[in-house]
């Protein structure tokens, strides 16, 4: 059951939450809508489910438009950010609700609920109330409840945000395994790139209501289509300059800009972990600070004629030998990306 979203636009008063977004989600895939909070991801999900109506655009599921269908008629499973379990019903009643309102006979209902309880590892919790469950258990009940009516599509809104970090890791693996077993076309919303990359087959990066990039995690990570995507996927250094003789030079850093006319203003983005640096006299810059970030180390330096530079290394990296505040360094750029400079942005030389 593929999902196609075409030219979706949604406004709340004068605020444009979603602006002309088109997505194509292939049948049986697990996709992620990734982006900063308030960027319109959840709104897209709610429009697909029918909980919210789009101002413009269409939602097509399995080659059929569902624009005219109410949420209750779309047969889409939805897992809410805070689960929205029915607090006065037991786990079994929660899971069975979608079958009950469809008038599924009691016997068939019991069998289906028992199957889901087993599938999601909820044995022994059937008679508990939601308030008597842990965060991870609530999450699984919410997924079981959404899956019970055998939905065509499963949508999950920030499914892991309400549980603590350790449980989250476990739930990610669990969601991936569940999807591999069931192959229900699924979309989940997250603002956590690690979550999107470790779980999803395909990632859609959404910012300020627009689709920035779509692709597999590797495609997005290795080839960020826009400056926003590059900045969003980790710490970066940003330098602006004008192209001369097919190169963009900023201070000591030089990146090839083949095919770009001389004098064109460009922006260079260097990932903090796409750099090498080592101690060297006279070098091209000076180290200001060395910060320990758990298993990584961040070096803050100032480059002659370019300004601040941030670099990250694994803590035991041999590159860090002798690097200390005040020492002079040499820098080598392994990968850099150039983007057209937004018109009129400050820093245009």
């Amino acid at each position, binding site marked *: 059951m593929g999902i196609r979203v075409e030219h979706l636009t949604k406004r709340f008063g004068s605020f444009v939450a979603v602006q002309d977004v088109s997505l194509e989600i292939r049948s049986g895939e697990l996709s992620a809508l990734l982006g900063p909070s308030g960027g319109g991801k959840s709104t897209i999900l709610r429009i697909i*489910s*029918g*909980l919210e109506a789009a101002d413009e655009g269409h939602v097509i599921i399995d080659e059929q438009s569902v624009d005219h269908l*109410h*949420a*209750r*008629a*779309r*047969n*889409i*499973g*939805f897992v*809410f950010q*805070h689960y*929205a*379990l*029915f*607090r*006065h019903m037991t786990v079994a009643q929660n899971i069975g*609700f*979608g079958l009950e*309102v*469809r008038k599924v006979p009691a016997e068939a209902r019991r069998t289906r609920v028992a199957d889901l309880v087993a599938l999601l590892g909820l044995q022994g919790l059937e008679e508990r109330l939601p*308030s008597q469950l842990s965060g991870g258990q609530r999450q699984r009940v919410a997924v079981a*409840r*959404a899956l*019970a*009516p055998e939905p065509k599509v499963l949508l999950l809104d920030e499914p892991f945000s309400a549980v603590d970090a350790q449980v989250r890791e476990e739930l990610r693996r669990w969601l991936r395994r569940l999807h591999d077993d069931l192959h229900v076309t699924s979309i989940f919303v997250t603002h956590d790139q690690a979550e999107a990359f470790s779980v999803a087959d395909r990632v859609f990066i959404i910012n300020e209501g627009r689709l920035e990039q779509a692709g597999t995690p590797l495609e997005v990570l290795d080839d960020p289509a826009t400056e926003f995507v590059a900045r969003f996927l980790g710490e970066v250094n940003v330098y602006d300059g004008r192209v001369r003789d097919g190169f963009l030079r900023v201070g000591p850093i030089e990146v090839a800009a083949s095919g770009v006319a001389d004098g064109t203003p460009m922006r260079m983005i260097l990932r903090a972990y796409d750099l090498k640096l080592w101690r060297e006299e006279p070098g091209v810059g000076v180290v200001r600070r060395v910060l320990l970030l758990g298993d990584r180390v961040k070096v803050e330096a100032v480059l002659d004629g370019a300004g601040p530079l941030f670099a990250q290394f694994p803590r035991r990296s041999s590159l860090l030998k002798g690097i200390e505040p005040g020492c002079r360094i040499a820098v080598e750029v392994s990968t850099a990306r150039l983007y057209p400079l937004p018109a009129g942005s400050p820093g245009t030389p």
Partner: protein
Amino acid sequence: MPDARPDAFRTRWLPRRVALLALVVAWMALLLLIPLGSLAVGVVQFGPLAVLRQIGEAGGWPALGRTVVVAIASVVLNGVFGVAGAIYLVRHRFWGRRLLDMLVDLPLAVSPVMTGLAFILVFGRGGLAEPLLEALGWKITFAMPSLVLATVFVTLPFVLREVSHVLVELGIDEEAAAATLGASASQTFWRITVPNIRHGLTYGSTLTLARALGEFGAVLVVGGAIKGRTDTATTFIFTAVDERHEPAAYGMALILAALSMAFLVLLERLKKRRTREA
């Protein structure tokens, strides 16, 4: 249950604390225990059977019956409109919502006597609605309907406010979840919304009932306390005292006090259950 309070709040028998406790007890006694106690003493002095007979002779039982009918009607009407109004005020955004929201509390702020007078001006002789009522052949003021109307108005905020608080706290996620699971609007209302607001509804209804039993000013003005037609338990007490039927007045007052106490106990239990579930 172990005492969970921090040390600083545990009771120590300092003179200041003893003095404070004595003050509170004295105050409560002055306001509550002595008046209620003297009612009971009065009833005992006259003899319970004599009191009951006197209530009957003075026409007290039909008056008490009217009070009960009015109270039940208020609970039912305010139950229905309170829930509908709360859902509408909390879940919908419309022009004038803030104003309406404010007006809901009006019955708490204005004197019931004013309320009664306002109803007379609308439904009474020469009132705004008189031509319509005459055409329909309905009589509202100085008749049973006015007692219900006035009491419903005076008790309007209780259910509506209690249910509104609960609805705001609940949010709409559970109802949205029910919709995505295929539930119709009425299935969602009866299976999800009603069970979730039931404590607020019961609490608000109990407050409504207690208030309706004790309402005096509004029913006196709109009903006129006509003996055998529009007098209620409270206006009965008022006229009984006036006509020097003290035993009947004492007896009726004690009955009303006992009813209200019973509802207070019920209320306390509901409150406890609500805090436990929260």
